[in-house]
């Protein structure tokens, strides 16, 4: 144990000196992380162990603190999407759309129905990829590499759809104030339809591989349970809260982007253990698929993909070169000379891991005065030391990956 990580005056060091078990064995300290292969992302936990069992844990975070909020105060509004991408990079379109919707709430912009539906589709695709990553990695952590290799193929398929929509794979930087930067190509819809045809079978197989798998059940049932009361006290939201049996979902409680038009259920678990979290995510993937199908079916005619707000929406490049009016708008938007009201808005969206909120304070200038991200991971990771108390070391890893803590979102 390096002195760097645990100074001798640390309370664990004292406790080890004081406490000696009956059989003469000592407590020990284990440093888990920050670069432990089994922790996906960088979290450090100093564990006080009695043999294999964890007595206490002390988490340290901030290893990829990148100062999003400080950068945001120094960037014009439309340059903040790249930051939101890098927050929860497993489901960046949700973050992007959440940010645009915050701005639209600030500026009172009504987005056309079709653009809203397109947003719903892309957000649900993002939720699917998020859950694919979380659940397949949970499989890897319990020793089943197959599931990961199998469903990651389909994550690539989703990335192909993203590429068709915006050109990027992971950090999408998608959309504009009032809609999308361009209409979706027919190819995008074609890829989407293929995905909808092929993915369910694969996901069914993935489920079959795990849900009744003896080894998986032994590793996850009753591992890291959390009661509904405790989960709420710790500020849980999203699938982790729903696994504990609380049906709170921002998509239903405060519908945004026309979520009220779609018919879907909120899957809930019961015991809030790792297995329930896994199952809730699995079930949510099915719901997401159903929402996408509904959105495609109900998609309004026409080709509206953005609101008519020339003050905020960048005109097409060819118009900028040929028409005076577009050039002026382009100039004004890029130089940040657009009217922005002095206000405070809070907009929540249901991110991959829970309620992702944007609290924006403006002072009328081209940059936010203050932008605070309510990052679900940051808030619920507090409960982790409590959840692994008394668990085995190997369970700690499984609990961490089932919570789906994304380091980028945790540290901001």
């Amino acid at each position, binding site marked *: 144990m390096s002195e760097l990580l645990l100074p001798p005056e640390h309370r664990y060091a004292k406790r080890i000196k004081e406490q000696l078990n009956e059989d003469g064995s000592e407590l020990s300290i284990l440093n888990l992380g920050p670069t432990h292969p089994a922790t996906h992302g960088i979290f450090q936990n100093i564990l006080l162990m009695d043999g294999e069992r964890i007595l206490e844990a002390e988490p340290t975070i*901030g290893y990829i603190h990148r100062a999003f909020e400080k950068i945001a105060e120094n960037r014009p509004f439309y340059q903040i999407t790249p930051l939101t991408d890098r927050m929860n990079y497993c489901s960046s379109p949700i973050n992007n759309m959440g940010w645009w919707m915050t701005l639209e709430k600030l500026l009172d912009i009504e987005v056309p129905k079709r653009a809203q539906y397109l947003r719903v589709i892309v957000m649900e695709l993002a939720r699917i990829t998020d859950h694919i990553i979380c659940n397949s990695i949970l499989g890897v952590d319990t020793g089943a590499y197959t599931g990961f290799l199998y469903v990651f193929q389909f994550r690539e398929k989703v990335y192909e759809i993203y590429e068709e929509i915006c050109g990027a794979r992971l950090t999408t930087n998608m959309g504009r104030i009032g809609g999308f930067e361009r209409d979706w190509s027919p190819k995008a819809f074609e890829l989407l339809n293929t995905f909808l045809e092929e993915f369910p079978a694969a996901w069914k197989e993935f489920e079959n591989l795990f849900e009744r798998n003896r080894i998986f059940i032994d590793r996850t049932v009753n591992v890291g349970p959390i009661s509904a009361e405790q989960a709420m006290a710790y500020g849980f939201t999203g699938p982790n809260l729903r696994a504990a049996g609380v049906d709170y979902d921002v998509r239903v409680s405060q519908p945004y982007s026309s979520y009220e038009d779609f018919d879907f259920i909120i899957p809930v678990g019961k015991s809030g253990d790792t297995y329930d979290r896994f199952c809730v995510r699995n079930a949510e993937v099915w719901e997401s698929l159903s929402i996408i199908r509904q959105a495609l079916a109900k998609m309004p005619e026409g080709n509206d993909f953005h609101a008519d707000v020339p003050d905020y929406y960048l005109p097409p490049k060819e118009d900028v070169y040929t028409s005076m009016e577009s050039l002026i708008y382009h100039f004004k938007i890029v130089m940040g000379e657009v009217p922005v009201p002095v206000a405070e808005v809070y907009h929540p969206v249901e991110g991959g891991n829970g309620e992702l909120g944007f609290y924006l304070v403006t002072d009328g200038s081209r940059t936010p005065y203050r932008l*605070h991200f309510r990052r679900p991971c940051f808030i619920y990771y*507090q409960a982790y030391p409590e959840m692994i108390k008394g668990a085995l070391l190997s369970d700690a890893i499984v609990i961490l990956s089932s919570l789906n803590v994304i380091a980028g979102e945790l540290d901001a």
Partner: protein
Amino acid sequence: MALETIQIKEKLVESFDSAVFEFKQERDIFSFEVAADKITAVILFLKNDPTLRFHFLTDLCGIHYPDNDEEHQFAVVYHLHNWYENKRIKVKTYINGENPEIKSISNIFLCSNWMERETYDFYGINFIGHPQLKRILNMDEMISFPMRKEFPMEDSGRTDKDDRFFGRTTDNY
């Protein structure tokens, strides 16, 4: 029967009189200000009152207003949410700039523990009664409070980027 904002206002004024003020509807969120010394009482009241039931702390963050007068230099903002009635409110409280301190609500809402630590880390706001108030995201050795407006975004000691070539200086904009 939805919880009406007027009801929230009446209840609060009845119990706290002039310590709660500036009630207004901001877009979809009802908000008001609280005198800093009453914050724990108000939050506790909002949480435990049988009709208000704001049982969930959504968010807690700080804001720095260097241009305000001395007593309004920093603000701490609490977002509360009542899931039963699906009602959100925002509570804002201003504190002194010279010696920013406010009572901690970490014994009321468990989840505020890290949020307060983060606010301390960013702004140096001292949360009185917090069980473990130390830096959370930045290194312990750091002396500045980076989110205060007077501190620059960039690290001034960096050598590989010349601000002149980026069309900016360290005190950007």
